[in-house]
């Protein structure tokens, strides 16, 4: 497939920090003029060291924060300038899977409530089918129906991550941004989750933007890799080419450190 799912042009984000009224403004450039394209059905890996702006990019793509400059196109539609209200319609198309922490799911909601939410908001299925759909989603991510009335704190980290995935695909999202989805999990569970993501990609024809600092994961998951350094994308290349012959000095260093 050649159509472009996500296109980013000259996207920048800077934060203005001002400690008090009298101090000078300090500008932090978290993301500087990055551009990339993700084709439909493709997986793009975004790697870089901590503080290189990867998570900011994820938040920008989801419009959880407003970009300072540049343009984001989702299936050809410019969503950069959309208001919160009009953006809500497109949120069904693009979803995010966060890094697992103890409060990545509302601890006061049950699993079934958490899964019903996206279904209700985006009216994916008719009201009377919501219960069935919740069961189907649970099955899809490999959880049993009996977990439905539990709270997130009663489940393991891996199970919670599966709930997050289920929430993301519940809206019939075509693009999913995965922000360090497995970094906080046990190595054994990591494999399971990654395999689940791969399986879902096949079944649902998903497009991934995969943000991680773990090259192993990228190697396993992605067709292409973008290397970020201090807010900029220094190199973007096919996975194999990048791993074997990186051009940029920083990319070279990064891959070298990984291989050793």
């Amino acid at each position: 497939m050649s159509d472009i799912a996500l296109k980013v042009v000259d996207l920048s984000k800077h934060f203005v920090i001002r400690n008090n009224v009298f101090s000078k403004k300090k500008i932090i450039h978290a993301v500087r003029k990055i551009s990339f394209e993700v084709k439909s059905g493709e997986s793009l890996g975004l790697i870089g060291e901590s503080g290189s702006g990867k998570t900011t990019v994820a938040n920008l793509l989801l419009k959880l924060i407003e970009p300072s400059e540049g343009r984001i196109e989702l299936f050809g539609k410019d969503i950069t300038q959309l208001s919160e209200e009009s953006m809500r319609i497109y949120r069904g198309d693009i979803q995010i899977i966060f890094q697992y922490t103890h409060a990545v799911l509302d601890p006061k909601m049950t699993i079934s409530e958490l899964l019903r939410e996206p279904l209700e908001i985006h009216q994916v299925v008719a009201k009377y089918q919501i219960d069935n759909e919740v069961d189907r989603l649970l099955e899809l991510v490999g959880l049993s129906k009996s977990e439905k009335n539990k709270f997130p704190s009663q489940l393991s980290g891996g199970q919670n991550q599966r709930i997050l995935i289920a929430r993301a695909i519940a809206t019939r999202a075509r693009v999913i941004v995965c922000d360090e989805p497995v970094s906080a999990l046990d190595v054994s569970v990591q494999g399971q989750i990654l395999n689940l993501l791969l399986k879902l990609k096949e079944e649902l024809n998903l497009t991934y933007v995969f943000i991680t600092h773990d090259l192993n994961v990228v190697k396993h998951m992605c067709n292409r890799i973008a290397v970020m350094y201090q807010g900029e994308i220094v190199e973007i290349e096919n996975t194999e080419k990048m791993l074997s012959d990186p051009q940029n000095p920083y990319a070279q260093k990064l891959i070298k450190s990984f291989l050793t």
Partner: protein
Amino acid sequence: MNRRNVPLIFGIVILLLVLLVMLFPEMFASHSPYTIQHIRFLHDEGRLSVERAPFSPDDGFLLGSDHLGRDIYSYIIYGTRLTISLGVLIALGQFLIAVPMALYAGFGSRIAKSVIQQFNVIFSAIPALLIAIIILKLDYFVGLEKQKSIMSFILVLTAVSWARLGNLVMERVETILTQPFIKGEVAIGKKHFRIAIENVIPHLAPELIVLFFMEIARNLSTLMQLGIFSVFIGNLGLINDATSGVQINTDISFEPEWASMLSTSRTLITIAPWTVIYPALAFFISVLGFNLFGEGLRTLMQKKESRSVLAFRKIITLDFKYFCVNVDKRSKFKITLWIALFALIIGFFSFINYKDYSIGYASVRVDLPETTVIGTEEALFSAGFIADYMTRLGIVPLRNDSLLMPFDIGQSFLIEEQMMTLSMESGIHNLNQGTDYAFLTSGNISESGVVYDATKDDLFNISSFDRFADKFILIEQLYYSDSAIRHFIETITVNAGVKGIILVARANQVIQNHIVDADEDNAVIVVSQEVSQVLKENPDLVIAVHTTVKPLTSNGYNVVGIHRGTDPHIGDEAIVVGMNYNYLNQEGGEVLKFNLKLMERLCQMADQKRAIIFLFLDGTINENQHGIHYIAQDFPYSPQKIQVYIDLTSITHERFGEIEFSTAQAPPTRQFAWSLGRLFDSKLNQKGYPIQLLETNYIDGSYYFTKSESDNALFWNRGIPTVILGTVKTDNNIWDLETLGSIVLEVINKNNY
């Protein structure tokens, strides 16, 4: 580890007790909180001693009494309702403002945030208490009636204290919004409003509930502090002394409420410490109760995986269907608890207006005769109608199985035609019946002649009757008692062939007569003071009178019935309510409807502990036929058992400008009547009725408290203390019966405990 939640248990016990007292104060109280007893008599080994309030705690008063002799214990019990509701309502007000504002601010509204912060800064810098005192001490707020006073308290105290809470909640909201899952909810496409309700509030809920009870406790202490500065609901601020231009107010409230107790008695702390200690203790216990309950709830709610949150979320998002399916039994129990709590809060609202004292006489639909005058068929019809009405209300006769008590009024006439003219140089003047003159005695008369001014004669020792012959005799009533005047009329008419007697009206005397005593030859006429002035100045003036009359039956009918008391101790004590049923115009008919409805409402009041005797009096239009005299001669109930006679016979107007009122015949020694009078006085003042106190005249060796003998009848003949309430027409008749009736109803009901 399953440790008992001790604070919660203690808190629940205290709050349940408070709630019980709020709901059923009459179960606990020993006295009526409105009862006032200034002095009491003690028999001590055969000696009688008199003691003055405040009384120390003993058998009569469990926790003592205040300086007015009100029972502290009962006052605290009855005051619980208002004081606690006030605390709760203020807390509710604070939450209604603070929580939405805090949510708004948390989601990034600059305006909401700065409003909260500025308010918080202002009221941190200047103590909220000080501002509340300044505002609530304004004359405008002090003078408000109860309902409005409560509202203003809630508004003012909410306004000065919400921001502190708002700031607290706002910080919490901000913390919650930084939690990772909020980002997830936004990414899902959830609206801010839904996030606030479904995600933020459930996380806040435990704290909010704890804060709520803590705020109630805080509000109660604020109220207590305000009370010490004489700021409380229903502060009448009676003027005690105004000598040398300095007003000294007594801060007093007749509304049971704790804060007022602290204020009224703070000057008594050295001589009567119980007046301060016990209300303060009441505050202390309830503040403790709310605090403990809040603390206990905090511990309970902080447990993780509490399913009550689920139910809570469902309640606030109004998704009730969900209850039916997925929730286990334990949660359902908790849901019920939540709903109960909700209902309780709503219940608090209704406490403010917990008793309905409206009369609603306009709804009475009956066909009454155009006029009802003693001795006519209409009177008999009306009496029968009233008797039927009484029977329907369960009112029973006092004597002879008949509600109608007939009495003999002798022969009298109803005037059909009447005329009185003055022939002056300028021509013949027609006088107005009802304002200028009225007949007391008459037959079919047509006379004319000159006037003899006897106002300066010694009428007790008349030397010669010759000078009276063929003249109208002018007598000043002011100097003589009613019986003396009757004596003069008799001697003069027997001994001299006079044309008639003209009496000068006393101040306030009603010049209106449709019935007259029978006398075929002589007329007795009352004239106004203006007319008498004209007569005195023009001795040669010829006056002419002309009347035709119709004889009446010689029986009047008082309708008398008793609504039996229910209390085993005081059930045989009675309150007598006297009303009239004679009238001459349509307005009088409305008054009769009002009287009937008032009787009905008095019977409906559930806690009528004492008996009520209803007198519907006949012949009230003419003093001589006034039914009260016949009742007074032969009262069908033991006068010792009668606590008070409430004379409403002077209520004769549907709309009126002033109230005539007298408690002169309800002395402090007659405790029940006296306190009833005081209550009437305070209530009428509170509503702003212009009051015309009835004069006390010293006539013929005895005090005539009011304008006529009938007003004195029960007090002087039977020793029954009397409170008189009547209406007066003025140029500006802005008051109506409905509000007056509700006062009557409320006062009687409150005093009758």
